[in-house]
Each structure stands twice: as structure tokens, then as C-alpha cells.
């Protein structure tokens, strides 16, 4: 018996859980540092609930890791449909919070179905692409059905309005079809469609405040009072960190409340202010280790579905991390996307937990169950 457990532990892939833990430790220290002064708003206790969420995410991750990947495949479509239905419910009866309806309240439980959709979409696309003409590069016609699978939830999420998550879904889609291989013609066609729909979207699909963000991005100094203010303050925070940072708990930008959402979208700015360029380099390496490990796993599994799934999980992590870092440092307009395992937030923490669980499960399936 003892032997079997040892055997099991030897074969169990702890690399993803370890990677998650290492980033989380950096994250929770940073969260503590950036909020410790906010005693008046009660935010100073936030790191405690973040730890609770992380423990929960670990339980979820470990639980998911024991599910056979074939089960994911079986539940891919039903899971997608249920999540889509939940998003639809949010649209018609969702709880309005901070000007946007994202929450679905069922008794004591508050759900954010758009969060589930990230994983739901990955499962659904993986299932779809693992069966449809898997061996040749995708032509444009091959993208119609998966395109719909992506766009329906994406548009519903944007209507909520949650532009960030909507964009994220589209990025996940692009990431996966890129992996699935595209013909050059398809890439060109997609480029044109992207440009045209982008212009249309900008003119007709966006709300005023969303449009304003894009203006702000192009010239933050023009509208320095509104969202431009955040962009400028964020850049000041990052820049003032210089090479080595101001040190733990020494962010003046955070303590003077220059930065809004210290604890969610702008954690990376605080991290940069306190730990400087080399701190960020360290953090980015932690993320790269996780991504490279995921991509390596994608190339070493036996089933194509598993491979697509792992790529999807990598897509979720990468898109979050890249978009968040880019917007905070002024490379992209400001949209509300959390930094994986660093930003405060229960729902997103659970999503990343599920992702880590899926990756571990697939990794284990290579040697644990055979």
C-alpha cells in the first residue's frame, strides 16, 4: 500500500501545481504590499481572502487532475451549452454590479458565467478541432462553425458589457486555430475581417466609455483627468521603480491612492514600482516557465484532443498575462483583465485552478493510468 502511494506520488506531475504556487506567492506578497495601507476601506484584509481563494483553487485543481481527460472530451459540448445558457441568463436577469451585469445570483452563490466560458470555449474548440479534418491546414470555410462557437458567447459577454473577457475569448480562438495550422489565404482573410469588424465595432458596437479608453490609449495625455489619468499614473508607478524598485511595501503610488484598482488590474504596476525591472524579469520568467511547460506537454501527449486542450489552457494564461501587462505598461488600451494568480479575484483564481488541474490530469494520463 505504502509502495503504491509512493509510486503514485512519483508519477503524479507536481510541476504545474508548483508553478502555480510560485507565482501565487509573489502575487499574494504583492497584494499585501499594495493594500496594507487601506485600513479605512477594509482592503488591507484582502490578502487573507485571496489565500482562501487560492486554497480553494488548489482543491479544485487537484480534484480536476484526477479526472480522466476522456471525460473532458465527453462533457465538452454539454458543458459549453450550459455555460452559454448561463451567460444568456445573466443578460436577461443578471445582477448589475458597477454598471455592468456580470453576476448571476443563485441564493448565496454569485456566479460570473463569462469566467466559466473561458474554459468552456477551450473544451468545445478542442473537441471540435480534434474531429474535423484534423490532418490538413484550415481553410476559411473550416472556420465558420468554430467562429460561431466563439463569437456567440463573445458578443453576449461584450453586451454585458465586459469588453475585456469578450476580447479574451477571441484571442483564445485565434491562439487555437493558429496551433491547428491555417493556410496563408485564411490568415489574410482573417486579417481583413478583423480590420473591417474592428472598425465597425468601434463605430457601432462600443459604448462611449469603451471608445474613450481607446482614445485614451492613443493619447493618454489628452484626457489626463479620466482614464488617461490611470494610464499616466500606471506608467509613473512602473517607471519610478527603475532597475531595482522602491522595495516591499514602499509603493507611494499605491499608498497615496494614485492608482485605482490597486488590488486587481493594476497589481503589475505596483509590483514594478516596488521591485523594478529585475523584479519584473523574475516574474516574467516564472510565467514563461509555466507556458513553456504547457507547450512542451502539448507536443508530448498521445491524443490530439489533449494536445489542443493544453494549448487552450496555455492560451488562457498567456492572453491574461500578456494583455494585463501590456495595458498596465501602456502597450494596449485599459481593459479589465486580471493578471493570473497575481490580481485579487475569486472567480479568475478558480478558472486558473481548473486550467492547472486539466494540464496536470493530461500530464498524468501519459504515465499514471497506463
Amino acid at each position, binding site marked *: 500500500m505504502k509502495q503504491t502511494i509512493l509510486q503514485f506520488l512519483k508519477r503524479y506531475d507536481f510541476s504545474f501545481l508548483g508553478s502555480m504556487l510560485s507565482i501565487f506567492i509573489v502575487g499574494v506578497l504583492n497584494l499585501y504590499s499594495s493594500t496594507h*495601507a487601506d*485600513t*479605512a*476601506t*477594509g482592503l488591507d484584509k484582502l490578502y487573507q481572502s485571496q489565500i482562501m481563494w487560492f486554497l480553494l483553487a488548489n482543491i479544485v485543481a487537484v480534484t480536476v487532475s484526477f479526472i480522466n481527460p476522456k471525460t473532458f472530451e465527453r462533457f465538452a459540448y454539454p458543458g459549453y451549452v450550459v455555460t452559454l445558457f448561463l451567460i444568456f441568463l445573466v443578460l436577461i436577469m443578471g*445582477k448589475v454590479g*458597477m454598471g455592468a451585469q456580470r453576476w448571476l445570483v443563485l441564493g448565496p452563490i454569485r456566479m460570473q458565467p463569462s469566467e466559466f466560458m473561458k474554459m468552456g470555449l477551450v473544451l468545445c474548440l478542442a473537441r471540435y478541432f480534434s474531429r474535423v479534418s*484534423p*490532418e490538413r491546414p484550415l481553410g476559411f470555410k473550416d472556420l465558420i462553425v468554430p467562429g460561431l462557437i466563439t463569437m456567440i458567447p463573445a458578443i453576449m459577454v461584450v453586451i454585458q458589457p465586459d469588453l475585456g473577457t469578450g476580447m479574451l475569448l477571441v484571442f483564445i480562438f485565434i*491562439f487555437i486555430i*493558429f*496551433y*491547428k*495550422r491555417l493556410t496563408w489565404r485564411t490568415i489574410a482573410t482573417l486579417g481583413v475581417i478583423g480590420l473591417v469588424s474592428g472598425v465597425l465595432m468601434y463605430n457601432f458596437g462600443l459604448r462611449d466609455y469603451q471608445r474613450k479608453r481607446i482614445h485614451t490609449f492613443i493619447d493618454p*495625455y*489628452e*484626457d*489626463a*483627468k479620466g482614464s488617461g*489619468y490611470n494610464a*499616466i499614473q500606471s*506608467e*509613473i508607478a*512602473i*517607471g*519610478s*521603480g*527603475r*532597475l531595482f524598485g522602491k522595495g516591499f511595501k514602499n509603493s*507611494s*503610488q499605491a*499608498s*497615496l*491612492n*494614485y492608482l485605482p484598482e490597486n488590488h486587481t488590474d493594476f497589481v503589475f504596476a505596483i509590483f*514594478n*514600482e516596488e521591485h523594478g*525591472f529585475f523584479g*519584473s524579469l523574475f516574474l*516574467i520568467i516564472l*510565467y*514563461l516557465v509555466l*507556458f*513553456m511547460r504547457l*507547450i512542451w506537454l*502539448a*507536443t*508530448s*501527449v*498521445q*491524443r*490530439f484532443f489533449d*494536445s489542443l486542450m493544453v*494549448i487552450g489552457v*496555455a492560451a488562457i494564461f*498567456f492572453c491574461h498575462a*500578456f494583455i494585463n501587462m*501590456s495595458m498596465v*505598461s501602456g*502597450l494596449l488600451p485599459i481593459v479589465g483583465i486580471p493578471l493570473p494568480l497575481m490580481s485579487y479575484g475569486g472567480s479568475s483564481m478558480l478558472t486558473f485552478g481548473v486550467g492547472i488541474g486539466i494540464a496536470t490530469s493530461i500530464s498524468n494520463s501519459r504515465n499514471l493510468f497506463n
Partner: protein
Amino acid sequence: MFGEEELVKIHKDRATLISYIITACFGLILARLWYLQVYKGETLHNYSIQNRLRKEVVWAPRGQVFSRDDQLIVDNVPRFDAILTPQFLQEKDDTIERLTKILELEPDAIAKILKKNSNQATYRPIVIKKNISFAEVSKIETQNFDLPGVSVDTFISREYRDKEVGAHLLGYISEISQTQLPKLRDRDNIDYRLGDFIGQFGIEEQLDKYLRGTNGHEFVEVDARGRRKRYINNDNLFKGIEDEKPVSGMNVKLTIDRDMQLAGFNALEGKIGGIVALDIDSGEVLTMVSRPSFDPSQFSRGITSDYWRSLINNKENPLRDRNIQEHFSPGSTFKAITGIAAFEEGIIDENTEVFCNGSYRLGRKVYHCWKKEGHGSTTLVKAIRESCNVYFQKAANRMDIDDIAKYAKAFGFGTRTGISLPREASGLIPTKEWKKKRFGVEWQAGETLSCAIGQSYVLTSTIQLAQAYGAIANGGKIYRPYVVKDIYAPNGDLAKTFTPELLGQIKFKNNKTLKFIREGLYQVVNNPRGTNFYRRGQGIQMAGKTGTAQVRSSSADKVYQKCENMDFDSRHHALFVAFAPYDNPKIAAAAIVEHGCHGGSAAGPVVEAVISTYMKKYQPQMYLDNLEKDKLVRENWVQSLRANPAPKKPSEEPEDE
């Protein structure tokens, strides 16, 4: 076809490509960070250290509240606090000494305050003295440069012009509490923060969303010590920075009349109780005062614990509203409803005579009339006028409690009036079904007799009584009472206006019912034998009913004990409800005086004061005409006294249960 494993292999080059792309993306971010942190690092670092542009909340001025005659009753007044930020203190002892001198404090007062707050972050300002004078403000401002770390915090205090008058109606504002925060965020979809002030009671609570306005923000430049710089010198980084002006809250005009409020308040001096007056043709609340009261201004900037304790520990409970948040036994004021029920059900008519010998026996229980020797032969009008228990009990004995309840409910008793104020009490009108449900016991016939004279389970609030007597006066129209007339946008435009809401129209089977009930109510006040004759006032032609509600049920030997001789807490509650003027009614009012013993002498003057004020102010012609009529009443009385000297002013107040 390829096998699964081959498929994975086919995509290996893509995976490699993706890993390059990911690396490149993070390379891009690192390049950006390098640009910000190394290339522009020095500049941005200086910005963060020296050029502290702080975004500060500018509180929206809360809307003002006016009375119906456009008198300002709730206003915002600027006040100043002296604050100190420990982080920026230099030459601590010297600064503290100077500040102590300016503020004329005890030598060690500041040290004590600092010690008390020593565990909080040093950049958080500490309030040294609240509400400092203009002279002190200017001294601190002029010495600003010698007093690093000391500054003046301006805030807007909510001031209630008449202090305690109508405090329960107006309510107060105070800081949102930790427990309210999540609830209210959900309810209002406003991102409240700790430190936000919200309406907590009365109008302030009910109309919070109109009154509160929208906060703005401004950018203030502070130097490295946190002192505000007077002039913002925008460098290129912050060009075009603009403040966002707050949007003032909306102004509210109440249906309340300020002079009548004062009259009611003064009339309740030294008493525990409340008065409500309604316009009977609309349901507008003209007066709503409860005493003892509290000063809502005290809440608007952190109530002192001494004041709070004095409110909480006061046995008379000044925070409790006696008009809508409380219900009482209506006592004899309920007899009008019993009378209407009996008349409508055909049990009595105006000529029905009942003999009152002072008590009425049902089964083994004896029900006493308040008048020990009895009223003798009694008609409806006389029964109301002299508040004969036996008359109404005999009538009630031929009815069912459900019959009485039917009429009582039609007059609005037993349900909330729906006045838009928080925490209204519903009152209670018992039915057989209710008792079965509540106690699991059948209704007893004797209980009907108690309920018929407004005792036992029957509970009403003053606002319900005023509403019902208003309906008696206006022919059975039940209006929903309301306190807000108009809401005005900050620029003076009318944003919302409230109109009368007719809740029901009582249809009377017998067209004589109201005539004789009103006649009886008129005689209560204007006939020398009436229970309120001696508080009839001048020129107001009231018609009304006194009532006394037993606080504890008295044992037989104590029935005739003088109320004043009892313990204060056991004394009866006194009520008086009236409408006026009798021949052209405009206003209905109900007053309760807790432990006041006699409806006539305790509650009567309160109603009289409010109605007199109303008549003089709003119906001056009618008032003058009525003065003439009163002379007539007086002459008749004097004549009748000459003819038959019997009824003189009683040496004792009628007990009038």
C-alpha cells in the same frame, strides 16, 4: 489518415512557433519596461516623489429641504476641522505648541490625541479639533508654512434649522456602516465607500437617492510633505487635467408646514407623544411631530458618544417615532368606527336609545362605563359626545367582531397607510380568523365589547387615526398620506411632483350615517357636556373625539382610581382626534400623549394648537367667521346655564376610557 500521435507530431512545429511568439511577446513587454524604468526611469521617479498630484473627492452638496411654504428647514453649512498629518511633522514640539495656542487647547491635549491614533499609518491625517472658528482657520492658513503637517479640512455639515422639531420625520445622515456597505451597494448599484454619508432615518433615508447628488473629484498638488500647493503648475505631463465638479443633490419640498410643526412641537412640551395633521382632500401631511426628540444635526459629523449615550439611555426613548413607527390602543377614538359599523348594519339609528346605568354585564363579566353613575338614556349623538361605553358595547354585542373589522379596515386601520417613510407600523384590527391563527383559540364575545371601545387587541397609529377621521370628514375618501410635494433639480427645474392618491372610497348604505357621527363629534367639542368642550379653541370649529387607552388592564377596584394617582408608567395614554372646521372640513389631526391620562386635557390642546395655526394661516376668512359662530355657542351655553345651572365645569376630568 494519420494516427493521433502523428497528428500531435505534425503540430510540433506550430508549438515551437508559438513558444517563440510567446517569448517575443514578453520580450516586447520587457522592452517597454526597460523604456519606462531605465530610459525614462529618472524622470518618472521624480514625478512620483516630487510632483504629487492627488485626486480628492469633492463631496456633492446634499439637497436642501423646504417646507410647503418655502421655508428652508434642512441646509448645508460649511464647517472646518483642524487636522494634523504626523508624517509631515517637523520640529514636532514647536508645531504642537503653536497649534495648541491657536486652538486654545489644554497643553497636553494634542499629545493625547496623537497617542490615541499612534497605531495608524503616519500619512493619515488626524482630526485635532472639530468645528473650529473662522478666526482659527485664518490663523492656521496664514501660518501654513511654519506649521508643516497642519492643515484645515473643510466639510459640509448638515444642519436642521429647527433642531429637534420633526426630527423623526426629517431623519439624519451619518456615515455608512460596515454592515450597510454591501447591502446598499447591491440595492442602489452605487459604489459606496466607508466614509460616505447616507440618510439613515425619515426623509433623509427615504429620499437619499434624490438628496445625495453625485460626488466629483479634483486634483490637488501636494508637496513632498503633503501640504497642498496653492497653485497647480501643470507641467507637460499633466496638461489638460481637469476637475470633475460634483453634481448637487436635488432639493425637496415637503407638504409639511413649518409653523404648524413648531406649534405642535411646543404644544407637546414636557409630554411624550406625537401629532399628525393631514389635509383631508389630498392626504398631504401638514404636521408630523414626535417628542421627546433628538437633534439630527449632531449626527451629521460623527455623533459624540456622550450625546449618543444620552439618547440611548433615556427611558423615554427619544429616537422612537410616535406617529408612524408606533401603534397604540385607540381607546374611545375608535367609537366613531364602531358607531358607523352599527349604523350601517342597521343595528342602531339616530333615535335608538340605550340606557346606561354605569355598567354592562355580559356573562360573568361586568363592563364598566367610565361614568360610575351612568349616562342614563343615551342616543348615538349623546353617546359619542359623552363617550358612553355601555351604548357602544350594547350595539357591538349585536354585531360580530368581523363586522366591526370590515368597517375599520375600510377606514384604513390594520394596514400600513403606505406613507413613503421607512418602518411604518401596521396597527392591528382583530378578526376571528386572526385570533384563531395567532393564539389558536376561538374568539370570545366579550372581546368584541372591548374592541368596540378601542381596547384589547385593537392597535392604531396616529397617522391612521388622522386618515380615518379625514375620511369621516370628506365623505369616505381614503387618501394615502404623503410628505413630499415636489423634487427640484439643482438648477431649479421641477424634477418630480407628487399628487394625491385615492386609496379607496367608502360607500355608505345609509346616507344618515356620517351626518350623525359628525354631529356627535361636533358636540364632543362644542357642547358643554362634550368631553373636549373646555379645549375647543377659538375660531376653529373642531369636531373630534377624545380617547384614553389603558396601558395595563385595571382590576375592578382600580377602575375608578384617579389616573394621576397611579405610577407614571401605568397611567393611561391620552388621545384626541379631530377634523376642522365642522361645516367645511379641511384638516384632520390626531395626537397621542403617552401616560397623559385624559384625552381632553392632555392631547386636546396639542390638536387645538396645530389646527388653530392652520386656520389662521391658511383659512383666515373661515377663521374670522368661526369666531363669530363661537360667540353664539358661548351665548347659548351661558343662556342654558341660566336656565339650568347643572352642567358646570367638572372638578374632575372625565375618565373616558
